[in-house]
């Protein structure tokens, strides 16, 4: 449990292209901030994977690799919590329609586990619709356990 109370707020923001390279870039940017914030290897793996899954959703399912659409990405560490926001410009989706990947009938599905993994690995996770279109997700990991 690192003591980061002395750390100043650090924010990194980017407008990323709708490519898989951006997925790698976002993961690297977050991990650099999270390492400076003092998260251990296990948390770094969880944070990195949650960001990767969120970016894949934005690039692949949201913006559908559209070169004219961007993924807005921001990571902030304020000493107590690491907050990541990822927003796409896609058509959005019905949050209530996500199937439960742990239901027996869904166990052998080849997709549909991304948001479940994000929820499992982060302390907070929110999704919201953007106007006129798009989806923004907010991921939070506490530097110090509640």
């Amino acid at each position: 449990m690192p003591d980061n109370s002395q750390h100043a707020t650090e924010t990194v923001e980017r407008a990323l292209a709708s490519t898989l390279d951006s997925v790698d870039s976002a993961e690297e940017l977050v991990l650099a901030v999270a390492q400076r914030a003092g998260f251990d290897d296990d948390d770094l793996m969880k944070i990195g994977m949650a960001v990767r899954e969120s970016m894949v959703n934005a690039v692949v399912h949201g913006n559908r690799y559209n070169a004219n659409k961007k993924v807005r990405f921001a990571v902030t560490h304020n000493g107590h919590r690491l907050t990541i926001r990822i927003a796409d410009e896609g058509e959005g989706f019905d949050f209530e329609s996500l199937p439960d990947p742990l239901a027996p009938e869904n166990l052998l599905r080849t997709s549909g586990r991304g948001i479940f993994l994000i929820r499992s690995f982060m302390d907070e996770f929110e999704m919201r619709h953007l106007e006129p279109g798009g989806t923004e997700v907010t991921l939070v990991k506490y530097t110090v356990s509640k």
Partner: protein
Amino acid sequence: MSVKLNTRQVGDVTVVDVAGRITLGEGSSALRDSLRDMINKNQKKILLNLGEVNYIDSSGIGELVSGFTTVTNSGGQLKLLNLNKRVKDLLQITKLYTVFDVHEDEAGAIRSF
């Protein structure tokens, strides 16, 4: 490094040594192509050695499930070997650990086919 696949034959079992990252893009498609190739060659006993896999995302998990289903539906068996803690944890939280036949010892895994 993305993913590196090396295939070897031990008796009638095809062992695939997988190393690196199985993630959306090159990593998961390489695994998919390799498994499809084995199925086309009528190789029915496949052991995936994941000991050197240091990262797998939901797309990679999907490829493991897809491979398992395809091999099983073609009358074959796909088993997993040498899961590290991270991969094992992932399969446990997604409730897939009990779906796959998972082994920690190669000789024992080969005998189990």
